[in-house]
């Protein structure tokens, strides 16, 4: 995970903080999820 997001970034940061953006190379999984369910979370 450090190689993708840098040092000090945890799984919790990635999953709950929408300010962290994924590199293009690892976006396949979120894109697959979005193609079957596009509902966004509510604040």
């Amino acid at each position, binding site marked *: *995970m*450090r*190689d*993708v*997001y840098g040092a000090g970034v*945890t*799984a*919790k940061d*990635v*999953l*709950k903080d*929408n300010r*962290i*953006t*994924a*590199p293009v*190379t*690892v*976006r*396949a*999984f*979120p*894109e*697959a*999820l*979005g*193609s*079957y*369910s*596009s*509902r*966004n*979370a*509510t*604040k």
Partner: protein
Amino acid sequence: MNPDTPRSSAYGFTTGLLTGTCIGAGLALWFAPRSAAEIGTRVTEAGKRLGQRASAEYRQAGIHAGDVVEELARTGRGVRADVARAVARGAHEVERVATAAGSAPGSDVKAGPVNARSFVSTIGALILALAVGSVAQAQEHLTDEASQSDKAARVFREIMDTPDKGIPQDLLGKAECVAVFPSVIQAGFIVGGRGGRGVASCRTVEGWSAPAFFTLGGGSIGLQIGAQSTDFVMLFMNTDGLDSLLSNEFTLGGDASVAAGPVGRQAGASTDLVLTAKILSYSRSKGSVRRPRAQGCSHQAGRG
């Protein structure tokens, strides 16, 4: 007594006064031009002397400046010579070290002046190789995680597109997070092990989050033999389920909060099981493992 005697005295005084005035004026007129000329001459001579003195001072200053410049040049040449000597000493030391390294037992490097360059070139090449290796390793890790994301996406699409056995759309719509662990390997003979890697993503206000990567590992004890590769898809229905995933105590297949999710047209969103479950699990296996006893599988976020 002569009555003309006072008149004669006055006449004489007047005549003398006029004569004296004329003589004084003449003398003044005679001397005045000569004084102006002398003053002019003196001023001219003083100017000439001042100019001569200024010229002399200028020449002296020029001479001194030349001396200073020459002194600076001599100093500069001295500094340059010192630097050159220091560089020469440094090169000599490098050459001496390289020669010593080349003449060490077991070394096939020939001693000589060329070895200094060879030594430096070798060190430079080594540093460059290490730098390139580090970059390549980071790129490999990134490529590895990209492959992990691609594999998870493929497994998820395949499960979703399985006719009558896919994950119900309404359940997926209620899930807050989805994790996919493709090809989790379980194998063993009495004592077994399980391992694999997975990807998770959660809903955010702007869509699905960036993927987080997890590594699974665990073991099982009991009568078992064989090997099995299983794809796991887990729906985390609320934040409690996500918290259990983020905690390092989450057990794949053994957690009480994990329930087997309904598939296909069993739109079981209204069942008690689905309403109370934090996590719904889906799996498909290849191969077989018989009679697993106690089993557990903890996970670790990232590459560990």
